């Protein structure tokens, strides 16, 4: 494995094995590092990307994949390190410069204007002109051509808001490929796609490779990486683990390299058996526009998982229960009905919800830790009108010890903590309301591996204390590792339940995606 790296590092160019031609790397990154303040998010990443090669970058959330990609495409400038293209040094301080040099980026999120047509989006900001006027006819014709190349058959006059998610992504890819490109970067392109759409996308990527483009493929879906990648570079905690030839790695190897230790040790031993006693009962819950017919029961001492694709409506279901969104249906906690139309009702009754959007909805980043900690429990914590500062401070000390929140001083602001420590603070904040049901949405998103293991251990401790824990996660491994039972959602409905031996990625993926192709087509027709 390491021989590959040394071979590449020695010479400026590499003799490709097949035809013996000398080909310069399209892009060479040397010692790329990035720091934000005192925090190093990427250090010393060195790699070559050759033409006609698919180079995958894998790593856990927070490993530095996205940062690396941002450096390559001009969205951020490196603190140290150099980039060279075709043997010449380059530096990008703006995305436009990278684009000009032939590096195009297909964003993970769909960045299109909903109210404009497909063709208008495709040429947004670089409209074709004819006699000083916008040349709509040519743009429409080109749009049809370009989209056809990608196997996308939406009308160029359709509004983007009316086409399916998969088609939107293809429009986005077509938009990126309008430029002259030497290197195409895909950032988690399959995160929002269903099985068949993924296949179509992978075919497009292989086609790009055939045409001689270099492809940088960022993903944590190891099966895709294994099928596509000629080379795989593994990042862990912002550092480079190494670059390996794609065919030499199994998915297990990749997972081990990403995590840095055996996966089994990541999840705590299950010591608590869920009781038969129902804790939370949800019947016929509907969240208009997001979910309908949701019925389930969570038991005392149970870790219940909610799996599904992004956009399946899992988060919205629980926001509905918490009164954060309009919803209908009945919710009972320990046989007592909760008025879900009232925002604080569920929280007061004993349901705690940790949002997936830690920075946007969970914590006041500019605020110190103590006010953050007590924000949900102001009434419980400070009876009467006045605040009890000293009690608050000692609660913080206790939370810091209980949840092992690492900090330099108690005076830091929440935004200065690392992702993992923010998540622990959020957990402490929600638990200050002493909930009997704790709902954790994406418990380990953007968190390093050490903190992950701790969060899992905390979840196990919560159920040991007799609470119920509901975990919403897009990481199937995580759900399988910690849950007693997993409910799978697809397009706003619960499509199945897996327990025991049936808790496999395959089984969950099947429930999460099958039949969706009809729906996708419907979306396209609208």
């Amino acid at each position, binding site marked *: 494995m390491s021989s590959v790296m040394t071979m590449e590092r020695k010479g400026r160019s590499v003799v490709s094995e097949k035809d013996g031609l000398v080909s310069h790397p399209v892009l060479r990154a040397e010692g790329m590092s990035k720091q934000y303040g005192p925090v190093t998010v990427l250090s010393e990443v060195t790699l070559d990307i050759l033409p006609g090669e698919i180079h995958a970058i894998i790593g856990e959330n927070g490993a530095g994949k996205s940062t690396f990609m941002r450096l390559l495409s001009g969205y951020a400038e490196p603190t140290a390190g150099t980039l060279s293209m075709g043997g010449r040094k380059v530096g990008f301080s703006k995305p436009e410069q990278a684009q000009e040099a032939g590096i195009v980026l297909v964003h993970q999120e769909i960045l299109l204007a909903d109210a404009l047509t497909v063709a208008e989006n495709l040429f947004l900001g670089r409209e074709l002109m004819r006699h000083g006027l916008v040349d709509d006819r040519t743009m429409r014709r080109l749009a049809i051509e370009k989209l056809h190349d990608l196997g996308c058959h939406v009308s160029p006059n359709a509004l983007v808001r009316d086409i399916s998610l998969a088609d939107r992504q293809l429009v986005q890819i077509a938009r990126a490929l309008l430029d002259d490109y030497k290197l195409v970067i895909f950032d988690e392109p399959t995160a929002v796609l269903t099985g068949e759409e993924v296949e179509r996308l992978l075919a497009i990527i292989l086609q790009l490779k055939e045409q001689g483009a270099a492809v940088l493929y960022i993903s944590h879906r190891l099966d895709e990486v294994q099928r596509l990648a000629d080379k795989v570079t593994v990042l862990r905690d912002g550092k480079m683990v190494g670059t390996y030839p794609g065919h030499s790695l199994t998915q297990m190897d990749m997972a081990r390299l990403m995590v840095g230790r055996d996966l089994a040790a990541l999840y705590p031993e299950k010591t608590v058996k869920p009781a038969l006693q129902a804790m939370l009962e949800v019947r016929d819950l509907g969240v208009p526009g997001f979910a309908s017919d949701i019925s389930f029961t969570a038991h005392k001492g149970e870790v219940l998982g909610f799996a599904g694709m992004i956009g399946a409506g899992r988060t919205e279901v629980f926001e509905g229960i918490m009164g954060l969104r309009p919803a209908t249906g009945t919710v009972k906690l320990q046989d007592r009905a909760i008025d879900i139309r009232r925002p604080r009702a569920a929280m*007061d009754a004993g349901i705690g919800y940790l949002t997936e959007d830690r920075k*946007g909805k969970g914590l*006041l980043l500019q605020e110190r830790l103590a*006010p953050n900690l007590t924000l949900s429990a102001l009434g419980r914590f400070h009876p009467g009108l006045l605040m009890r500062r000293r009690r608050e401070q000692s609660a913080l*000390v206790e939370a810091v010890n209980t949840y092992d929140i690492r900090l330099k001083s108690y*005076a830091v602001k929440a935004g200065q903590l*690392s992702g993992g*420590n923010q998540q622990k603070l959020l957990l402490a904040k929600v638990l200050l309301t002493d909930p009997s049901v704790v709902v954790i949405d994406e418990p380990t998103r953007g968190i390093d591996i050490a903190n992950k293991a701790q969060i899992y251990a905390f979840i196990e401790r919560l159920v040991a204390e007799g609470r119920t824990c509901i975990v919403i996660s897009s990481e199937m491994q995580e759900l399988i590792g910690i849950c007693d039972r997993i409910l799978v959602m697809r397009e706003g409905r619960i499509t199945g339940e897996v327990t025991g031996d049936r808790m496999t990625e395959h089984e969950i993926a099947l429930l999460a995606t099958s039949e969706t192709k009809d729906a996708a087509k419907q979306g396209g027709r609208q």
Partner: protein
Amino acid sequence: MSVITGSTPVRPEREWNIGWSDVGPFLALLALLLIGFSINQDFLSATNLGNVITRSAFIAIIAVGATFVISSGGLDLSVGSMAAFITGITIMFMNRVAADWGVLAIPAGMAIALVVGLICGLMNGLIVTVGKIEPFIATLGTMGIFRALITYMSDGGTIPIDRSLRDAYRPVYFGTFGGIPFPILISIAVAAIASFILYKMKYGRKCAAVGANEDVARYSGISIIKTRTIAYAMQGVCVAIAAICYVPRLGAATPTTGVLWELQVITAVVIGGTALRGGKGHVWGTVAGAVILELIANLMVLSDFVSEYLVAGVQGVIIIIAMLIQRFSK
């Protein structure tokens, strides 16, 4: 993501963490006093300073209320016309009952002023929170309404206070206690109560949370509607207190009473260190801000550099500079 490893001893700290936004306004105030003194020796005389600070009291009192509104993420443009409207209603009420009630008309008028202020503030608040209208638009609307009402009530002229009440009411503005003019004492009291609410009571915490990030507040179970509406209601009460102090100063309400006060009020809040986008409010900074504005106006009168007709222009420049500083120091 770097985790701090090793066992760095972590000590619980008192909340002494003074930043620029805390001391900045006071340093600016000090600098202004020194500049003033170097331009004109009379500037620092007790009489002049007393006058200046007394004049700044209206703005200071209203701006303390605005600190709540702005800190909770809102804005109130209607304060100037609301002050005129309340002044008008108060005087009209007192004049009507003066014959029967005598001097008792004054406390009754004050009570009416407070009630009307509370109602006006609540109205603003409910339009913004329950009606979900942008604060800027909602209070732009009520600003027009209040201004029209005072013009209508005064028939375009003035509403003078009844002669029988004038002398009895005079001390509220012109009187002193222990050598300190009443308006100064009142604004100090208002600021003290406000800082107690903002820093010692739960409401203050909610207010700052709602202003800093509405989503976080909502997800923490804090009612945005309740918190913001209360802020607007307190703003109304503060406007009423300012109006009560203002009545004896000119002894009348006119359609031009309180014109452009909203500019001064918002400027005072912003140069006082409270972020216009919401978050932590700085009550004493706001008071310093109001005094700074009045000092600058005073300097312009005392010196011959700039025409005093340009006072509002200078205030406009100050708020823009303050906003630029807030933006680029972020």
